[in-house]
């Protein structure tokens, strides 16, 4: 046997994502444009809203080639966010797996690599650096020209400038060059912006496309939804690795303290009854747990029924008012209703479902006569792969005739799910998986707004019917009088005025 020696090699995270661009949605030129716009907008929203700032976001995509067909663009995104401290700017934009988003609270991105991926894609297609201008509102504005050293996963600082910040401006401006295909991506981009405006009616968003067309989505409410708090892990959602990480840093000397200190909504009583259930003495030193004891502890955490459900303070739902404002603003419906469901949880991850319905106005009628569905996850619109999503499945399972809904009516259902961990069905983050806890909440939410819709449609229908009712009596009673007289060979046709008067009285009831 001939033995060929193997060559082992380590690659950097940047190199890994460079080789597997499709993981972050940069699989082809059309998808790349869509992903780039989406990632930068979401970064801007996450740089404003959590800091109590009403977002003003300006996006401009311009063609850099001689013609748009060449497929080279400059994408510029400006926001009025909190800004990034100067020393972090190169790392935040040009190093993979470096982010402010790795927290146990709801954020828009979850992988934390969308912005860096956009810059990497721009760099390998155009070889141009990214330009970043940012200030946290203090006296200086910092400007950088950066590239990524892909093999080392490090930023390369080509230029750094400091400007005076007289106007106390804060925010971030990113300008990146990239190859793409906007004409193919356009429908999805516009749909994405429109739906972003539904879920974020407190944001001003302006988009100028390569042909100079301006798409403007204006703020209609000036209140932000309550901001999410960072939270402790819920015992139901914990695995062995999490326990290890906590043990490594804990100062607790007993499991009784350990449980109360490090886990979500675990008080003294619950900690006691849990440890009894799990078979651990209360004074066990967590740092001395053996590997198999840790597995036992995790198993017990998963199966113990006495924990309180997670609370929703780590979540940032829109709230009924904002959701309704977004719907009224973008769809201008004749009727709308919204509901926010109580917080719930799956596998220890809290989530909240918000549902809206809109009827009439600018609500579109689909060519297949189905109901229009707008899906949101942590305030991000999902515009691909509708048919695989749990919300679509729920909507199709409902007998809509029970709610007086006929095929082809202009009806839209809006479903927003927020969670510290959205159960994505695929890595592409476009479809939410069908977890029973989640589909039950969606179903109940849709039913709730559908009942309100039914009341509206019924009342509308009733007014119409009452009018028709009288006309029916007016039409047929004289016929009955006429022909019965003829049959009975009577000359005089009976007087039906009194009967018609009675019908009218009934009609008012």
């Amino acid at each position, binding site marked *: 046997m001939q033995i060929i020696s193997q060559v082992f090699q380590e690659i950097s995270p940047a190199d890994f994502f460079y080789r597997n661009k499709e993981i972050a949605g940069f699989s082809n030129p059309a998808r790349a444009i869509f992903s780039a716009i989406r990632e930068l907008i979401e970064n801007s929203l996450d740089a404003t809203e959590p800091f109590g700032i009403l977002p003003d976001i300006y996006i401009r995509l311009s063609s850099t080639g001689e013609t748009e067909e060449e497929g080279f663009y400059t994408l510029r995104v400006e926001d009025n966010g909190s800004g990034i401290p100067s020393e972090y700017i190169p790392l935040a934009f040009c190093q993979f797996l470096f982010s402010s988003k790795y927290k146990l609270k709801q954020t828009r991105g979850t992988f934390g690599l969308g912005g860096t991926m956009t810059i990497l894609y721009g760099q390998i297609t155009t070889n141009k650096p990214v330009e970043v201008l940012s200030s946290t509102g203090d006296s200086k504005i910092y400007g950088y020209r950066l590239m990524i050293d892909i093999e080392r996963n490090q930023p390369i600082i080509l230029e750094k400038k400091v400007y005076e910040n007289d106007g106390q401006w804060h925010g971030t401006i990113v300008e990146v060059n990239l190859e793409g295909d906007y004409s193919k991506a356009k429908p999805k981009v516009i749909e994405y912006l429109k739906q972003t405006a539904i879920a974020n009616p407190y944001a001003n968003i302006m988009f100028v496309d390569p042909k100079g067309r301006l798409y403007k989505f204006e703020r209609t409410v000036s209140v932000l939804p309550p901001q999410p708090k960072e939270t402790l892990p819920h015992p139901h959602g914990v695995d062995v690795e999490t326990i290890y990480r906590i043990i490594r840093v804990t100062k607790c000397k007993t499991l009784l303290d350990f449980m109360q200190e490090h886990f979500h909504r675990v008080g003294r009583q619950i900690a006691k009854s849990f440890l009894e259930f799990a078979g651990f003495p209360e004074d066990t030193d967590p740092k001395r747990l053996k590997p198999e004891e840790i597995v036992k502890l995790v198993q017990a955490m998963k199966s113990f029924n006495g924990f309180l459900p997670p609370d929703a303070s780590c979540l940032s739902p829109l709230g009924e008012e904002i959701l309704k404002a977004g719907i009224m603003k973008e769809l201008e419906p004749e009727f709308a209703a919204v509901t926010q469901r109580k917080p719930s949880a799956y596998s220890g991850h809290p989530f909240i479902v918000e549902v809206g319905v809109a009827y009439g106005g600018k609500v579109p009628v689909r060519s297949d006569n189905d109901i229009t569905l707008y899906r949101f996850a942590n305030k991000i619109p999902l515009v691909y792969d509708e048919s695989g999503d749990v919300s679509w499945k729920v909507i199709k399972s409902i007998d809509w005739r029970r709610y007086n809904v006929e095929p082809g009516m202009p009806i839209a259902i809006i479903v927003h799910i927020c969670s510290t961990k959205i159960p994505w069905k695929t890595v592409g983050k476009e479809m939410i998986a069908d977890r029973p806890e989640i589909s039950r909440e969606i179903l109940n939410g849709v039913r709730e707004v559908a009942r309100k819709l039914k009341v509206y449609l019924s009342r509308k229908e009733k007014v119409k019917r009452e009018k028709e009712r009288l006309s029916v009596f007016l039409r047929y009673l004289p016929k009955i009088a006429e*022909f019965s007289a003829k*049959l009975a060979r009577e000359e005089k046709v009976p007087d039906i005025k009194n009967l018609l008067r009675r019908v009218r009285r009934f009609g008012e009831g």
Partner: protein
Amino acid sequence: MERVKFSAREKRREVLARLEGFGHEIYRQLERGLFPQIVMPSRSTDNIYYDENLRQYVLGEKKKRRSAGNIGHIRSVAQLVWMAFFVHELTSNQKTSTLRDVFYSAQAYDIPFESQDESDNIITDLESILGCAREDFNVFPEERSAVFGDLTIEYTVPNYEGKRLNLTSHPDGVMIGPALTSAEFIETSADKIIAVEKGGLFTRFIEERVHEKFNAILVFLGGQAPRSTRYFIRRLNQELNLPVYIFTDADPWGMHIAMVIISGSANAAHLRDLTTPDAKWAGVWASDIVKYKLPSEKLDDLDIKRLNELMRDPRYKEDELWQRELNMFMKIQKKCELEAFSRYGLTHIVDKYLPERLREIE
């Protein structure tokens, strides 16, 4: 032979009186300031029963009420009153009309029917209220069937009153229409009625002189026999006192054609005088397929489904012949047509099968 007497004029007078009575009832209610109500037997399936004595389906005690004060009813009340008026005009003028004609005629009176189904249904309502068939008030369907044989009839329709015709006068067969069903029977030398499902066989029988050889009046049913034909067969049976033998294809549909002539249909449970309880299904039986080695086809899914329905049907219960043949169909899973006898030559059915069968069941 003892004859039951039939008088077209008397029948007409009776029908007209009932129609006027119906109109009077409505009129009276309106005069008293009431929303007119009409009560009639319910024709829903849970109110249809098989009557062992009458040997036909009848309606039970359940009633349905239609009130002009009810928004859901007033339209059909108006349609009913108009319908009574319209057929009164028809009958008193001795005019006939098809179901389709009635549907269109309504428009002249600004009485709308959405479809012919709706107007047909109102006619059936009127039948239940008056207790007589639509043919009695001169409304006929389009189907045509025929008769041939030595029977002299006398017309009662206008311009033909008193005129007579012998039903052998046209060897293609004499059409059964309003004029014939309303004619009086004068004289016959026949001693039986042979009814056949298919036109080809009817012609064959005439050519082979079955009417002479077997002393029979031949009736062509044209598939599921129209009600006027069923009524005509009943008259032949009752008034002339002649036994009736029915020949159909050997399949669940064919045997049911015979059954409807004998015991009526559920659709006509509100009517009498359409059945001929003593008529006999003479073939082609399932057992004939085996006995005569007839070319046959496999029963298809629809046939089997139908067969199962018939097995649960009260009309088929407690009769040896029906039961035997239903079971035979189930067993051999085959069917065949009347024409199948042609495999032994065109005259085989007349020369062999018919005499054998009549000997067997007479």
